[in-house]
């Protein structure tokens, strides 16, 4: 199925969900399984219309559990696959996200965050699923999570998410919030051939020698798919490089779990992206992500006009956590400010990385995100 | 709904004018009865305006006389004293009708079968009895009422039971005439005995070659529904309207079967093939023989390894390209509505092991004629090579032993099996044809070559050198070394002993009734002759009809016969059935119950005893409704009604009582009043007559359709009138022609016995007899036995009985 022409190009005025959906198509996603939920529904709706046009598959499953399972199935049948949801659905997906981690199924999960816990505030923005994204499923594992702060990024980071999940055979999340998802902005989409897309590594060993879970130096095993002539087994049980269950062997468990984590941890510097604004001499460093980062940016600019040496460290990658970068600016800064639309989640990671440097947390719950003034206020009161 | 308001008066209103005709029947009657004397006596009876005797009343002249008298003498009642009404009642009734007299105003006195033939040597007593019989008839005829018969429609479909050559022929004839025929065969294929025989006598043409085309015609005929591997379970209803239940057993192979035989090849189970008399093997899935119809294979579940739904071996399933095999097939029960039934169930061959001296089953080289047919048959296990079982060598000498199981009171059956002589002659010639050098002996009693072309064949066999020796071997001894056999016996022509040595002995086994004929008999309420074959309604005039209306016989079911006769009879049966169905309607004899509303107490007893559920109690209208079409005419309802609200037309209480009174008019203390049912007991008494069985002349038979008609008050009336003994006789329990009406007979007689005991009467004086139409001797000996008790009955006992039952005198 040729992508030429069918994939959107040029300058468009879109909302975040639609941009995300177009990003997925641009990245080569050809399978979407989901379940309606505010505020992620528009992604499903748009893909329901667009997928067939690009020869891709859209299916609405009976629930988010099924959606996630179907995504893994499609991924193993060789298609780039995704689902999109919000908090409650994200919770239901966790067990199978764990399965995707264990069976190293490349896939993208878009979580448009809304107020929780439970059904919470379906129509209000939040950043309350940041920790669930990392720890939501049981057991030790690593995933990748990206936080777009604009409609343009809803496009770009979705493409990015697919590339990362294909590269590292890991479920990758796009942690958007209600505002980036629903606001309308200009989006510039480069010609298809200029968009960098990555496909999973294929085995070059002959079928009878192929070991489905034997990694190369990158710690990522090449991936054969169903119907490609490699008859292999994959399981959610602890398994050896054949994919055969070894449920009582300690060293197989150690090898497997370590590798699943290390393939992300050891490649962190290749994965992590942050935006550094006026940080060279900053002694007040605001650490923000998602929509909040945009308020933070103008707050930092105003502070500079007032002569305050303020800077912004915007986290594009939330997981793996940009520890090095945070630590580096914590060194030079007198203090750090972390505004989040939750009651204290990523701030804990920042504090851990900032060591002695004091970290001030600005919380917002169930209302519009921080205004530049609110953040500026906090910057001004830097010595207290 | 028949109903007579006015109490029965004499005749149709005007004064009664009875004509009596006493028949000499050549010397059959006149030989031991003084017919003129009887006629003179008759003239003196009340209501009789003329009485004549003539040589053959049934002859055209005889009938003409009656017709003229009816017209000229204004007769309104007719009595003929001659043979059994079972023989000529229809003849005379017809004559009356032609003369404009309602046929229900005719009555017969049976002075031949029940009198002259059974008292050949006592002219006086026979004549006296004849007078009694005539006066009984006159007494009854005076009370007879003109009646109209009602008509019921006939289903234009026929059921043929048995798919041998007779059944096939009958089915084809009926179907060609345009009637739907259901051909039910219990074996997997039609063809029967004829399909197994190699050649047919006397023409010597190939049996299967002439049968196979008929078989496939029957298989493909649009008018024939072939139900193979099926059995008749139940038959309900009556002539023209039978409802039949047929069990269609599963073949486990669907019609899609192309008979390619691949399944059989792979089937691991083998069993002896019934068709080859067990001489060849077949598999658990098989077809009995190449020309089988239907050709669809069948699985023998007794042999197949796949029991109760679990498929252990699936070789045939895998081998069948058409996927025609289904182990899940279940038996079906079909319900068929037919108007006529043809019984063509055939015969079994005699089991020779019962005659020890022939050592069948002990010596390998003693075989039966049926086994011989398979051996000499090109399609048989030996490919037509006559080999002897012990060493598979062609025998140099063969002996046929005749009458194995036939014509013997010690070994097997009394009758001649009819086909064995010619069959043996044919077989002997077959041997001579293939292996002229072979020595062939036939040990016989008589050679019966009575049929067309039979004698020629017999002569030819003699010409060809077949040695016929009169006298059956007394024993068969085996030579242990050679397995050849010594036959020792007496040549009754030369009056000398013989001792013959042969390589093989063929026992010419006779035919006997099917093991299951009793079952068929009960299903269809048929009668069987002493030898066990089904009994025809009349040996001369209705040779293919059963006594039960709408049922006919074809082939060996009725008696042993050869192929030609079977086919002839089959076509005859088909024609008889066809006649019924062509009419499309059948008249029900006007012997259904008459109902007197004013006497009915709506107790409902009658509805309980009716075997046909033809009576329904209408409590609101305080009446009983009679469905004539459903009524079988047994009259047991009339016997049951304590209030005389029901009485059987043409056998009314008044009429029967009048007969009783006539019997007991004089010297009742010397007489036995016998009530006999039309189908078994009366016919049995007829049979005793036909067989000239002699018995005491004191019995007077009153005919009712069923013993169930005999109401207790009849018996009481007889005793009240001073009769010495009473006999109530009917069909054996289970053989009742009215389903089970004779159960009521038994109950009533038992009640009477109890009553007699309580009242201190000798219950010996009332006898209950079950006698089939074939059991003439049983009837005769019962009369003899009763005669001895009768002689012991004292005048006091007679008086006592008279007093006890005098209430019965008021009855009528």
């Amino acid at each position: 199925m040729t992508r030429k022409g069918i994939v959107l190009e040029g300058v468009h005025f879109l909302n975040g969900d639609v941009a995300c959906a177009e990003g997925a198509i641009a990245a080569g996603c050809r399978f979407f399984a989901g379940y309606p939920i505010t505020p992620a529904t528009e992604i499903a709706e748009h893909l329901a219309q667009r997928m067939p046009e690009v020869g891709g598959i859209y299916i609405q499953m009976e629930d988010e559990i099924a959606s996630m399972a179907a995504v893994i199935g499609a991924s193993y049948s060789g298609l780039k696959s995704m689902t999109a949801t919000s908090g409650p659905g994200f919770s239901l997906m966790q067990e199978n996200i764990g399965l995707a981690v264990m069976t190293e199924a490349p896939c993208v999960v878009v979580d448009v965050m809304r107020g929780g816990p439970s059904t919470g505030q379906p129509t209000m923005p939040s950043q309350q699923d940041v920790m669930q994204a990392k720890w939501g499923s049981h057991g030790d594992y690593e995933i990748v999570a990206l936080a777009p702060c604009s409609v343009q990024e809803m496009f770009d980071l979705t493409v990015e998410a697919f590339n990362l999940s294909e590269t590292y055979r890991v479920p990758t999340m796009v942690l958007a919030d209600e505002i980036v998802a629903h606001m309308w902005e200009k989006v510039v989409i480069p010609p298809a051939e200029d968009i960098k897309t990555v496909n999973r590594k294929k085995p070059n060993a002959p079928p009878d020698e192929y070991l489905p879970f034997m990694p190369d130096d990158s710690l990522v095993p090449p991936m054969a798919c169903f119907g490609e002539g490699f008859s292999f087994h994959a399981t959610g049980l602890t398994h050896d490089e054949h994919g055969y269950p070894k449920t009582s062997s300690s060293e197989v468990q150690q090898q497997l779990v370590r590798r699943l984590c290390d393939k992300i941890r050891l490649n962190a510097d290749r994965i992590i992206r942050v935006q550094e604004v006026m940080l060279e001499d900053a002694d007040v460093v605001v650490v923000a992500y998602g929509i909040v980062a945009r308020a933070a940016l103008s707050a930092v600019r105003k502070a500079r006009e007032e002569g305050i040496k303020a800077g912004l460290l915007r986290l594009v990658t939330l997981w793996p956590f940009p520890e090095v970068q945070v630590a580096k600016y914590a060194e030079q800064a007198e203090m750090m400010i972390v505004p989040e639309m939750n009651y204290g989640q990523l701030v804990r990671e920042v504090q851990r990385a900032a060591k002695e440097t004091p970290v001030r947390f600005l919380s917002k719950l169930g209302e519009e995100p921080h205004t530049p003034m609110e953040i500026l206020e906090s910057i001004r009161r830097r010595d207290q | 709904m028949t109903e007579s308001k006015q109490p029965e008066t004499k005749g149709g209103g005007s004064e009664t004018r009875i004509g009596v005709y006493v028949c000499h029947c050549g010397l059959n009657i006149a030989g031991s009865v003084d017919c003129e004397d009887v006629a003179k006596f008759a003239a003196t009876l009340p209501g009789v305006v003329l009485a004549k005797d003539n040589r053959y009343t049934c002859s055209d002249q005889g009938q003409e006389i009656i017709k003229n008298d009816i017209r000229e003498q204004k007769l309104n009642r007719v009595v003929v004293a001659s043979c059994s009404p079972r023989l000529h009642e229809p003849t005379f009734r017809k004559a009356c009708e032609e003369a404009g007299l309602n046929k229900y105003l005719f009555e017969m006195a049976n002075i031949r079968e029940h009198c002259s033939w059974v008292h050949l040597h006592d002219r006086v007593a026979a004549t006296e009895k004849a007078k009694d019989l005539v006066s009984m008839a006159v007494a009854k005829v005076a009370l007879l009422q003109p009646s109209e018969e009602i008509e019921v429609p006939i289903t234009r479909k026929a059921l043929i039971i048995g798919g041998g050559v007779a059944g096939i022929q009958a089915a084809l004839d009926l179907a060609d005439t345009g009637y739907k025929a259901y051909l039910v065969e219990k074996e997997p294929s039609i063809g029967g005995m004829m399909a197994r025989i190699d050649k047919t006598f006397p023409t010597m043409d190939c049996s299967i070659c002439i049968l196979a085309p008929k078989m496939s015609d029957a298989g493909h005929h649009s008018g024939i529904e072939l139900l193979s591997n099926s059995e008749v379970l139940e038959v309900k209803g009556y002539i023209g309207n039978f409802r039949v239940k047929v069990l269609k057993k599963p073949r486990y192979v669907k019609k899609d079967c192309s008979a390619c035989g691949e399944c059989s090849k792979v089937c691991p189970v083998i069993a002896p093939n019934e068709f080859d008399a067990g001489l060849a093997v077949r598999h658990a899935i098989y077809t009995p023989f190449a020309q089988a119809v239907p050709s669809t294979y069948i699985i023998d579940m007794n042999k197949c390894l796949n029991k109760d739904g679990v498929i252990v071996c699936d070789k045939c399933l895998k081998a069948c390209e058409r996927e025609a095999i289904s182990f899940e097939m279940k038996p079906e029960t079909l319900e068929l509505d037919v108007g006529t039934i043809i019984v063509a169930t055939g015969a079994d061959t005699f089991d020779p092991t019962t005659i020890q001296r022939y050592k069948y089953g002990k010596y390998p080289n003693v075989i039966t004629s049926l086994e011989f047919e398979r051996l000499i048959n090109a399609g048989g296990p030996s490919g037509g090579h006559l080999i002897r079982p012990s060493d598979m060598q062609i025998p140099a000498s063969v002996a046929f032993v005749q009458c194995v199981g036939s014509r013997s009171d010690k070994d097997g059956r009394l009758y001649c099996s009819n086909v064995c002589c010619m069959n043996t002659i044919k077989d002997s010639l077959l041997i001579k044809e293939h292996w002229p050098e072979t020595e062939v002996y036939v040990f016989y009693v008589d050679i019966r070559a009575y049929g067309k072309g039979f004698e020629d064949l017999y002569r030819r066999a003699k010409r060809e050198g077949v040695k016929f020796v009169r006298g059956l071997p007394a024993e068969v001894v085996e030579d242990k070394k050679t397995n050849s056999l010594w036959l020792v016996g007496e040549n009754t022509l030369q009056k000398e002993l013989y001792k013959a040595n042969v390589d093989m002995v063929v026992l010419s086994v006779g035919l006997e009734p099917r093991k299951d004929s009793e079952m068929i008999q009960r299903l269809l309420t048929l009668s069987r002759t002493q030898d066990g074959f089904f009994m025809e309604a009349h040996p001369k005039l209705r040779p293919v009809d059963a006594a039960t209306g709408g049922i006919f016989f074809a082939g060996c079911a009725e008696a042993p016969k050869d192929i030609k006769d079977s086919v002839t009879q089959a076509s005859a049966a088909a024609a008889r059935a066809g006649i019924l169905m062509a009419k499309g309607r059948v008249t029900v004899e006007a012997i259904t119950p008459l109902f007197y509303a004013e006497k009915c107490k709506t107790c409902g007893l009658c509805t309980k005893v009716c075997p046909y559920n033809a009576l329904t109690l209408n409590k609101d209208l305080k009446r009983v409704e009679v469905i004539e079409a459903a009524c079988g005419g047994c009259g047991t309802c009339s016997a049951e009604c304590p209030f005389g609200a029901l009485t059987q037309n043409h056998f009314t209480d008044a009429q029967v009582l009048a007969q009783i009174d006539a019997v007991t008019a004089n010297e009742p203390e010397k007489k036995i009043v016998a009530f006999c049912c039309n189908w078994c007991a009366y016919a049995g008494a007829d049979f005793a007559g036909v067989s000239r069985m002699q018995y005491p002349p004191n019995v007077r038979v009153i005919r009712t359709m069923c013993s169930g008609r005999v109401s207790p008050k009849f018996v009481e009336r007889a005793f009240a009138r001073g009769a010495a003994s009473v006999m109530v006789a009917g069909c054996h329990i289970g053989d009742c022609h009215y389903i089970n009406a004779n159960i009521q007979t038994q109950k009533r007689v038992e009640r009477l016995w109890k009553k007699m005991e309580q009242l201190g009467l000798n219950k010996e004086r009332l006898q209950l007899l079950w006698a089939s139409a074939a059991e003439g001797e049983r009837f005769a000996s019962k009369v003899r036995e009763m005669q001895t008790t009768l002689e012991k009955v004292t005048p006091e006992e007679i008086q006592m009985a008279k007093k006890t039952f005098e209430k019965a005198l008021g009855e009528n």
Partner: protein
Amino acid sequence: MIEETTIQTSAHPFSKYLRSAMMPHIWCPGCGNGVILNCFVQALDELKLDLDKLVVVSGIGCIGRSAGYTNTNSFHTTHGRPIPFATGAKLANPELEVVVISGDGDLFAIGGNHFIHAARRNVGLKVICANNFNYGMTGGQQGPTTPLESSTPTSPYGSIEHPFNLVHLAAASGATYVARWTTVHVRNVTQSFKKLFQKKGFCFVEVITPCPELYGRYNKMRTGLEMMDWFKRASRIEHFSDPSKAEITSDRIVVGEFVDMDRLSYEKLLHEKIAQINEKALGKVK
């Protein structure tokens, strides 16, 4: 031990369909799962199926191991989720023959919702359910098919729950082929398994299988043979009879084929639509 059996199974006519490294299987003596696996590979053998195009998916439970045992593309999902996984796999590549082999608990308790919806959509999956009336792997607890009154560790006083009639459920949900057999009916089971590959839509075969170690032990049938004898004694083959009357009681187990019809499969409809719309879209841009 493993080594030795490895050599031996390689001699068995069906050994090429089994992952020798995984043999011998974990199932108890008398467990019917082995019979079902046996029938399944026999069906593959008789059909000479292209194993590269075959995917066997299973869920959690004793029978869940069978995916790993069949020497083909196989996936062992989370508890209750083989059907949605298989749905994704089948839609993404309709060329694949996707078979789900799982237990009654996995498919009808935790996974019940997925079953009825896949049947409703008529996704071309072949679902084989080993029904052993209990949760074998966790120690014989009662499940969605446990017969009324029978006792299990979690229904020590006799189950008071009404079991699902699986063939009725499947038929009502829209399955295009529905059959039930027991493990004594190995020929019929194999036949039905072969049938699965001739059908296009959602197909379901229930195989009632003995669990002597647990269900049997708690219900007075200590050996597999006793349970097999029960199946043999009680089974009544009633093809295409009313599924709602297909009962399972101590003296009557109604087995046979209940549904066999044709309905356009979900993937066929889906891919036809996709092809059509894709073409239009391509046309538009040219």
